[in-house]
């Protein structure tokens, strides 16, 4: 694990040195698309980081602080970077150094605190009628490492149906532990890098074997800390054997509908996908959710599905106006694509895209991939939420 020297310059030199300023990242960056301004591009931000590293600019310079927060952290730049710059890691270091103490937005402090307090989540859950996972008996296949389903801490409360669906579609193949706590992704991305890593390690200790998660953001963070092989996002887990999905994986207890496909008005449901940025850009998982959706519905690729929706973890709360500007073009694309449902694979995207479509009174609905698979699993004509 890289890390800057304590008390020294904020960035790990080996991370910063990678960038050759070729600018190939500019077209991939949603905030650069908004401003056409170098400072709000990955290359420009790295130039700012370098200026901070060499003492040319103070870490607290207004533009430096502004750019560390204006960045979505979607990591779309990493995928197109031929020099292999680990921008996400640099951003974590940036926020870790720059957002310490009083410089962190108040709303963010409250949120990060809540994620660490089970009672606070519990209180929220009471208000929202949270999904309460019961400990299930395990029927893991002999010789296979146990897998655990991690239900997202906020998801359980805000989207209990997603959690219930995830429990249903994973059947008896994974264990569903109660009260696992937060993986720390939000903390790591928002200036509490060490705490975020420690939370992931604690979770890794509590859940040995493979951790299956319904959240792309959690998956990427856990993979970063615990190792790639310890983590599978749900679609990745489901698609491990795509030829038989959903029939093979889901029919283990015989509850699958005859053809396992979702239909509406006598035709297949048309489903698009909104990628989870960290799932796609951080873990390279893009084909799997598409394969899963293609098995249970008519899959339609929405142009720009791979670009950030503006939820970006805490971004939609911290920078609501910018978040809406990022989202606007995406909503246009979704409505133009003629889909019935947009599938999401991350709770933040769920909230963001649904709120956006609702505000437009769009007939297009939003559902987590787990919910759609569960509906197919349950059989019959489905109703996407």
């Amino acid at each position, binding site marked *: 694990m890289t890390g800057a020297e304590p008390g020294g310059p904020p960035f790990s030199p080996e991370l910063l040195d990678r960038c050759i300023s070729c600018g190939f990242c500019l077209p991939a960056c949603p905030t650069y698309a908004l401003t056409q*301004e170098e400072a709000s591009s990955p290359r420009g931000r790295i130039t700012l980081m370098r200026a901070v590293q060499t003492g040319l600019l103070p870490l607290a310079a207004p533009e430096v602080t502004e750019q560390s927060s204006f960045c979505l952290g979607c990591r779309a730049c990493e995928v197109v970077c031929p020099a292999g710059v680990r921008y996400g890691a640099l951003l974590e270091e940036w926020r870790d150094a720059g957002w310490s103490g009083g410089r962190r937005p108040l709303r963010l402090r409250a949120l990060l605190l809540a994620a660490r307090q089970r009672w606070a989540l519990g209180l929220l859950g009471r208000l929202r009628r949270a999904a309460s996972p019961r400990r299930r008996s395990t029927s893991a296949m002999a010789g296979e490492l146990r897998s655990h389903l991690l239900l997202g801490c906020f998801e359980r409360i805000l989207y209990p149906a997603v959690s219930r669906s995830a429990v249903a579609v994973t059947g008896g193949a994974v264990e569903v532990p109660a009260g696992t706590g937060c993986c720390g992704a939000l903390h790591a991305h928002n200036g509490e890098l060490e705490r975020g890593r420690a939370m992931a390690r604690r979770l890794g200790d509590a859940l040995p074997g493979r951790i299956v998660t319904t959240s792309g953001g959690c998956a990427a963070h856990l993979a970063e800390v615990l190792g790639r092989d310890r983590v599978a996002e749900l679609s990745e887990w489901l698609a491990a054997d795509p030829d038989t999905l959903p029939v093979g994986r889901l029919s283990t207890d015989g509850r699958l509908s005859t053809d396992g496909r979702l239909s509406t008005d006598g035709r297949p449901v048309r489903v698009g996908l909104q990628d989870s940025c960290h799932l796609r850009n951080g873990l390279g998982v893009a084909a799997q959710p598409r394969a899963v959706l293609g098995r249970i519905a008519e899959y339609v690729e929405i142009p720009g599905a791979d670009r950030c929706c503006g939820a970006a973890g805490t971004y939609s709360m911290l920078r609501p106006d910018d978040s809406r500007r990022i989202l606007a073009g995406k909503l246009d694309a979704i409505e133009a694509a003629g889909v019935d449902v947009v599938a999401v694979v991350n709770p933040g995207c769920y909230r963001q895209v649904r709120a956006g479509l609702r505000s437009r009174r769009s007939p297009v609905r939003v559902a987590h991939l787990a919910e759609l698979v569960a509906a197919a699993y349950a059989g019959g004509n489905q109703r996407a939420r």
Partner: protein
Amino acid sequence: MQRNVGVDDRTVGRLESIVGAEHVRTTAGAVAPYARDATPLFHQMPDAVVHPGTTDEVAQVLRFATETGSPVVPRGAGSNLCAATVPLRGGIVLVLTRMNRILEISAAELLAVCQPGVANATLGAAAAERGLLYAPDPGSRVVSTIGGNISTCAGGLRGLKYGVTRNYVLGLEVVLPTGEVIRTGGRLWKDVAGYDLTRLLTGSEGTLGVITEATVALLPLPAHSACGVAYFPALADAGRAVAGVIAAGIVPATLEFLDNRCINAVEDYAGLGLRRDAGALLLFGDDGDPDRVAVHLARISEICLGEGALDVTTAKEVAESEALLAARRCSLPALARLGPMAILEDATVPRPRLAEMVARIDAIADRHDVVIGTFGHAGDGNLHPTCVLHPDDTDAIERAHKAFGEVFRAAMELGGTISGEHGIGASKLPYLVERLGPAQVDLLRRVKTAFDPAGILNPGKLGS
């Protein structure tokens, strides 16, 4: 490096009144990202960054700059490799990315009219939608702008068959440093009225005027394209194969080579299954009528095998071809994985001297104890020797500079030049007089003065 001229409050106020306050940046944090482009080792903070939205705004900014003597450096995406957009003397960086509209694509006239901030790939995609091709395709095409491409006369992977940017610029709208707006050329293929200022401005690196609109030629999109890869024990073998291909009367769209170091760097990045043990890789391709392309590829394969190729494969699908071309385009950044800093050069020699030149580069690198990988365009003799090193290793940087000085001299001895397609900028200006001779450099200065009497446009570069 000279001290910044500085921009005072009155200047800022004036700039804001021209383009709007939201399009002027003067604080250190906001201008710092414009202190550099894609060229390593060159940095200088500008005093102000201005994003004009119209030709008229550009004209007002330039007129004001001429009055006050403030340096102005026009900039597109800042992806050039010769420090052409580094504001050596501070002043104003004039960023043209807001002017990014495609104004017209005419299938009947085979041309496009666009603003300077349009990305090359964006214009290419818009042309392709109409069944047309914008041929110049520099490696940076996803990000580099048409204005920047014209200002550096960008080349690309198709240079041998299709030529370079200068072969496609029909007309320009240009704002002179004194604020007048002129239109050179136009929509005509034939037009000999006056000196060919269109060509003069193409490759002028922002030292004579600011391009605010361009009319560029398009071609019918080739019906089909395909490519293949040949591996050779050594680059000299590939050089003979290239000579054989041209001698056979074939002018392929693509003839790119990578040396062993580059093959491995690209393979590390892209994982295409390239053969890592080969001394050289030749990427060849052609486009046009499918039958003819197939015949050409088969013939090139034969010639390569005849010259001792270890292995020749021809990609079956266009998709695969694109992956190969993409791999070649990413040679530079992929090389950057070998070390934290890559100095990329652009020496060019007559095609038959290619292998000889690469051998000389290897010898020079050994002599100066630096790591240099070479890739480039075998079809037009354009080489990209790339030195990988650490920015803190001042001794290695010194050795690299000495090595490149010798590389340029070697290229000129072989009848070549110091830059084929990247430009002179600040990075190669010291070598220009060796290439052109004092009389011609002096003429360049007089041309520059005729356009820019106050010397405000991109000072310290061409013509300064």
